[in-house]
């Protein structure tokens, strides 16, 4: 995928009046060709969309390209958006479907390009406890744990990984996930249970009690 656009200059923030409008009003404006209104929508959801795609791909460049393509495709498809769901759910569907297709094509050339952990990770008491008490080697650092965790995530199927990323990492509710994945809540719960069981088995060395 091309990443040439990464060198584009920083755009000025959207006009303050747009920040006060709700999604429906912004979508209406964007449908009539108002790019500033769409810019505001991108700013609202860029972090959540990027995070989901990053947790799906475990690769920053892929997540960046897929997120940009999702926003561009959503813009071109705005006319077909009838408002039956929220713009957020509709956008998520576009991003997730595109990413699942991408991952199916990429299946045999997986590579990790993980982002560095931020400073807060070293001070998160839960994570500190995991490192000091539960790792097989006490010297194992957060970076190693991160790598093991992402490798385990990549062994899940795309749909199971998506459920874990949306629920356990991003904190979305079962109902929200069911709308994004276009399935019922029971399916989301069973996928989540199965995915957690698999992860627990793959990460058993890191999850044993002392």
């Amino acid at each position, binding site marked *: 995928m091309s990443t040439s*656009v*990464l060198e*584009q*200059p*920083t*755009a000025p923030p*959207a006009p303050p009046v747009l920040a006060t409008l709700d999604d429906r009003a912004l979508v209406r404006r964007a449908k009539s*060709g108002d*790019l500033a209104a*769409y*810019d505001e929508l*991108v*700013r609202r959801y*860029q*972090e959540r969309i*990027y995070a989901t795609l*990053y*947790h799906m791909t475990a690769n*920053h460049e892929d*997540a*960046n390209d897929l*997120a*940009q393509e999702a*926003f*561009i495709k959503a*813009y*071109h498809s705005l*006319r077909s958006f009838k408002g039956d769901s929220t713009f957020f759910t509709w956008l998520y569907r576009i991003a997730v479907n595109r990413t699942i297709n991408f991952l199916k094509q990429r299946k045999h050339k997986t590579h990790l390009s*993980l*982002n*560095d*952990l*931020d400073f*807060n*990770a070293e001070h*998160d008491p*839960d*994570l500190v*406890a*995991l490192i000091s008490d*539960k790792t097989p080697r006490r010297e194992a650092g*957060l970076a190693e*744990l*991160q790598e093991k*965790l992402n490798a385990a*995530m990549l062994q899940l199927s795309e749909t199971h990984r998506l459920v*874990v*990323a949306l629920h*356990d*990492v991003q904190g979305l509710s079962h109902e929200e996930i069911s709308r994004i994945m276009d399935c019922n809540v029971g399916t989301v719960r069973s996928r989540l249970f199965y995915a*957690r*069981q698999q*992860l*627990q088995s793959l*990460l*058993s060395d*890191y*999850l*044993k*009690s002392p």
Partner: protein
Amino acid sequence: MSQSPDNFDALQKLLALKRHEPPPPGYFNRFAGQVIARLEAEGGVPSPTWWQRWWEALNAPPVLALSYGAVIVGLVMLGTGLLQSLELDADPALAASQPWLARDSISVAAVAPPRAEVLLSPAVDPAGPASSFSPVLGNSAPPFLFNPSGLRVERVSYQPR
């Protein structure tokens, strides 16, 4: 002791590690600008095609959709009528064989009131007063009222008392 298969507390804490994987600094300050720049480079919003506009019109509120429907039905009926009249003008034989389609006869029948003599002609014989020798239904009865198939009605016998 191993984790219970249904107890995912430790796993969820471990998964929380993934929340500490941010993209490079300043990434989100540039992201929206890059998306908009790509959209502008592609030419912005493509203008909708005629069928997209038509489809949107059909998805309009019911009252508006009904009025669109009424206009479309009216146009279809007008077009059909025009087409028929053009065909009749072009083919006089067709008009002669199917008089009910003839524009003139339709218009005359629609505009002019029926004449009394035409309505009474089957009941009153114009040849003379009715008598036992000249029955009401004679051979001169117009074929279009009581004899549509062209059958002849003739007297067979009559025995006065």
